[in-house]
């Protein structure tokens, strides 16, 4: 007897929904082993994390916003099999550009235009930062995984240089960070520190779903991701579409950074590069690249982060427990995805060759 993987004719919908849920449960089980090993009752710890994340619900939402936005940005790129792992840098540069407008354009612009201009420039910066590797990939076939990754460090170091150096607030008592933005550049808040970025994210989730599923362009992007040869036969312009999609991908991550700077931090300082760009990849993958699922998964991941912070306070457990759970969730997910594409078949001994599916 022999076990053989056989390609499915079509992706299995049920497994696509089931796999992320099972994966999350598996990551909780793996985390439970870790907690047990360090003499903590996992049920108590998880209950404390959940109640902590719910009690601090505004903070959970605050952390969910950049994850939603960057998760959506990553989704577009991944949909075309473009491995943009540069969301982190795109977020940071979006924040830097927004900060630039907020700090230095206030005198030249009417007050009411300051905020929209800052958001727009942040969006543009994110788009350009993703556009560069996209052009290199589309026209010169340069591997995007490595270029997007390298550009993260360039963006982070550039931002650090600014708030440790030329943009540092002289009245900041030596703390690294720019001067606070004028209030005209602040993104309004809804509750607690939750800002309008939440509304942008929810609208964008719906718009992206619509674009990807219901428009001609979305269809082209999906074909490019699924089968480049077919796309070429259909006369789809692959290179141009890669660049356009990546400009959009970076733009949304840039918006995430701009919102973070203008809505949460109110100055340029440490706090833009907290790893949201990497967690966004977990978000996109767990949402199975479905824009409508992204906000929910982002909320769950933000809950793990805030829950981790809460058990650090209440149970004196390391806050990293949330990050560990985030990191563990993808392994069962990646393994499980095999079953959306393949089915396991048992072959009796003696039977000769596997028939092609």
């Amino acid at each position, binding site marked *: 007897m022999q076990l053989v993987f056989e390609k499915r004719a079509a992706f299995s919908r049920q497994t696509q929904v089931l796999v992320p849920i099972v994966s999350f449960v598996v990551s909780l089980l793996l985390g439970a082993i870790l907690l047990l090993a360090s003499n903590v009752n996992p049920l108590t710890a998880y209950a404390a994390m959940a109640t902590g994340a719910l009690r601090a619900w505004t903070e959970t939402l605050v952390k969910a916003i950049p994850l939603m936005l960057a998760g959506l940005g990553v989704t577009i790129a991944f949909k075309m099999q473009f491995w943009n*792992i540069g969301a982190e840098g795109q977020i940071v540069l979006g924040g830097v550009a927004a900060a630039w407008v907020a700090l230095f354009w206030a005198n030249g612009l009417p007050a009411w235009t300051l905020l929209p201009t800052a958001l727009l420039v942040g969006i543009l910066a994110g788009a350009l930062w993703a556009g560069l590797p996209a052009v290199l990939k589309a026209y010169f076939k*340069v591997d995007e995984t*490595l270029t997007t990754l*390298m550009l993260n*460090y360039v963006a982070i170091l550039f931002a650090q240089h600014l708030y440790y150096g030329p943009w540092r607030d002289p009245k900041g008592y030596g703390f690294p960070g720019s001067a606070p933005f004028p209030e005209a550049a602040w993104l309004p808040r809804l509750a607690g520190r939750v800002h309008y970025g939440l509304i942008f994210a929810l609208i964008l989730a719906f718009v992206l779903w619509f674009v990807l599923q219901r428009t001609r362009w979305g269809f082209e992007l999906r074909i490019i991701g699924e089968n480049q040869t077919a796309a070429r036969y259909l006369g789809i312009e692959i290179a141009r579409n890669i660049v356009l999609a990546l400009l959009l991908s970076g733009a949304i991550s840039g918006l995430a950074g701009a919102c973070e700077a203008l809505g949460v931090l109110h100055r340029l300082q440490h706090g833009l590069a907290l790893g949201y760009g990497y967690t966004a990849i977990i978000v996109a993958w767990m949402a199975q690249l479905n824009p409508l699922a992204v906000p929910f998964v982002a909320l769950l991941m933000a809950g793990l982060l805030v829950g981790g912070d809460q058990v650090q306070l209440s149970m004196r457990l*390391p806050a*990293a427990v949330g990050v*560990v759970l985030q990191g563990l969730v993808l392994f069962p997910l*990646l393994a499980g995805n095999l079953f959306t594409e393949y089915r396991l078949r048992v072959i009796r001994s003696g039977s000769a060759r596997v028939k092609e599916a």
Partner: protein
Amino acid sequence: MLDLLTSILAITLRAGTSLVYATVGEIYTERSGVLNLGIEGMMMLGALSAFAVAYHTGSLLLAFLIAGLVGGLMAALHAFITVTMRGNQVVSGLSVTLAGTGLASYLGQRLGPASNNYYLAGMVGPKLLPLAIRPLADWPLLGALFNQDVITYLMYLLVPLAWFYMYKTRAGLNLRAVGENPRTADAMGIDVTRVRYGYTILGGILTGLGGAHLTLAYTPGWAENITGGRGWIVIALVIFAMWNPGRSIWGALIFGGINAIQFRLQAAGTVIPAAFLNMSPYLVTVLMLVIITVSSTARHQIGAPAALGKAYMREDK
């Protein structure tokens, strides 16, 4: 002046050791066709476990062994996900990094002594000290090569051996065949799965050892985020070395050298912003990548393994 250069070279080698181990490891992994972006996580967890073991047992040897084991286990997980389960290599590697750094941070706050709230940070453990080889160590400049610790001395052997193994042995040829064209390699009777598992795990072991060198020798002690992005630099160094383990030393020396020079510059209070110095390696890597890719002749001579990042399944046609 000569003394200054000697000391910069000595620091460069010390700073570069962890990078060379991980770079050689990742070159072997990638040559088999597996991209492992989990270096940062494996190195971090290797660094943590090495220090924790050394702190509690006092044995440096055991600490290095455990660090290698931990790195190897994490790499085995990556191999299982990507080779057996055909999971996406980019995403799996990122998960290794996220899980590894998260676990290290968690354990760093659990494995310390009760008197320090179970924190490992700030604790003093055994250190791997440099072992000067006299009289060579007294030479001007090159003496820096002979005033290092055992792990760095072993690095002098590792690099040429890794080169020899890859280009001059049958096993090395098989490895390269699997990374270039797994289907042909399979037809030649090479066990693709076994080769990919083997070299991915080897990469993890070497990366774990590199991490151990950080907490036991280079900057002894545990600190949150001790690898500070070194794992990502390694991904760049592999390109820099053009997948040739013999060249791994140069990139690591340049990166280590930038560290060392920056150290000196800051001490001297110069105005050159450190950020731009720090940025240059990443920009150079992007540039290198473009040059390698665009010049097709270069690609033929030195290029990346053709099957890098692609899962192989016999059943597919």
